[in-house]
């Protein structure tokens, strides 16, 4: 039986009660976005699919502990996927090799290509809100956050790669994320 009317949180809760159909429906909804993120982080389709597979297995395992009052299903899933991806990068020794290239490519998050054609209105609006909030940040803060988010690098590595004082990197990331949080919560 299809469950088209259920939102992501309800599907994840059902998965937690061991409903495989709900879990597969959740996969259909979240996998493209998560896979897109993994491809940008890992720059390798096969690695990205491998990590995506591990992540969804972990999602299934941890679904019984999901609390919709504390987190949205999407953000909860993103955290799991990012952690998996960074673990994989560390395992492959790739995380710090990027520094050696001395050319930390510009990592840009842009909603223009992020909204899928079949994305719901709610997702599209939320995407625009996140982009608007990100654009509110000063350039130096936004650049560091985008770089850290998409590359999974430590602040030490970023400071070295961008030739910035470590304290500056930390301060800008702190200020930027606090501001981003306030903007996404509807603050000025």
């Amino acid at each position, binding site marked *: 039986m299809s469950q088209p009317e259920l939102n992501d949180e309800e599907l994840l809760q059902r998965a937690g009660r061991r409903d495989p159909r709900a879990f597969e429906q959740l*996969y259909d909804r979240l996998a*493209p976005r998560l*896979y897109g993120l993994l491809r940008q982080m890992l720059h390798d389709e096969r690695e990205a699919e491998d990590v995506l597979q591990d992540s969804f297995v972990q999602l299934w395992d941890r679904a019984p502990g999901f609390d919709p009052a504390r987190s949205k299903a*999407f*953000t909860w899933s993103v955290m799991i996927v990012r952690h998996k991806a960074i673990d994989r990068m560390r395992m492959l020794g790739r995380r710090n090799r990027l520094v050696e290239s001395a050319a930390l490519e510009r990592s840009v998050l842009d909603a223009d*290509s992020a909204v899928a054609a079949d994305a719901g209105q709610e997702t599209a609006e939320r995407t625009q809100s*996140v982009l608007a909030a990100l654009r509110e940040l000063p350039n130096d803060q936004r650049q560091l956050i985008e770089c850290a*988010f998409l590359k999974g690098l430590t602040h*030490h590595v970023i400071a070295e790669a961008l030739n910035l004082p470590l304290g500056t990197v930390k301060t800008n990331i702190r200020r930027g994320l606090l501001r981003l949080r306030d903007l996404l919560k509807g603050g000025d």
Partner: protein
Amino acid sequence: MDERYEELAALNALRMLEGEEQRALDGACVSDKELRALIAELEQATAELALLVPPVEPSVGLKKHIRAQIRSKGGTAAFGISRGAILGIAGWALAAGLAVSSIWLWNERSKFIERHDSALKAIAAAIPAADPTEEKKETRSLEDELKSIRAAYEKKQAELNTEIESLGKRETEAKNRITELTAETEALKKQDAEAQFQIASLQSEVWEYRRCEMAVVWDGRRGQGVIMLEKMPRAESGKDYQLWVVDPGKPDPVSAGVITLDDKGSAKTVFKPVAPVGQIAKFALSIEKKGGVPKKEGQIVFISP
């Protein structure tokens, strides 16, 4: 909040912390509720950045790989199919073999990737139109598993019904026992209520008997009593002490028998009047002829107040 912990929380949200910094943040979290809330908020805000990443469809077979991996881990009954069902259906075994092979191949390094692809193609070619068949067989397997679960459920339900019936019998027995005990208790209460004990301490106005002690306990329901005497002088030769019950409804005291003293001048004996008596008013002890008399003749030495 301390800027240092704000900084650590922000770096943590992006998973940038390592070693000592991560331990410092984890340690501070234990006792700082506000810090835990900040960490959660920053993680949420960070995760939402993923909305800005263009979605890309993963390969078609990935969902099946995930399903197979969850099954292979065991303990996931909803995804799992019973071993008996799998062994009972050859087609499903082939599909499971395909899935397992795919997982193994998928985890190999790049040098095996070409082998992986060719193996998948070879297996796919060997099982034409496998997917529709697999779906039907999977449905049948799920139906079998459902039947098995239903049978186990019905068995458990029958056991519970038996247990409930047994408990019902025990409850009935317990209720009957309670009824019996309640009736016994009521009977005992009634007996107690009906018992009319009367205790009288008799006094003597005769000089020789001033130091003597005499008491009577009278059970009106049974029509008998107990008399206790101490420090009594011996009766004269040819004489006996005789106890009398004074019933106001009778013209004369009713004899309750001769009282025999021991060597110490004491006596403790049950007595019963020779004729039924009604409302008791007094008890009296007199000195009568040896062996007692039917009607009081001698001197009264004790009388109850």
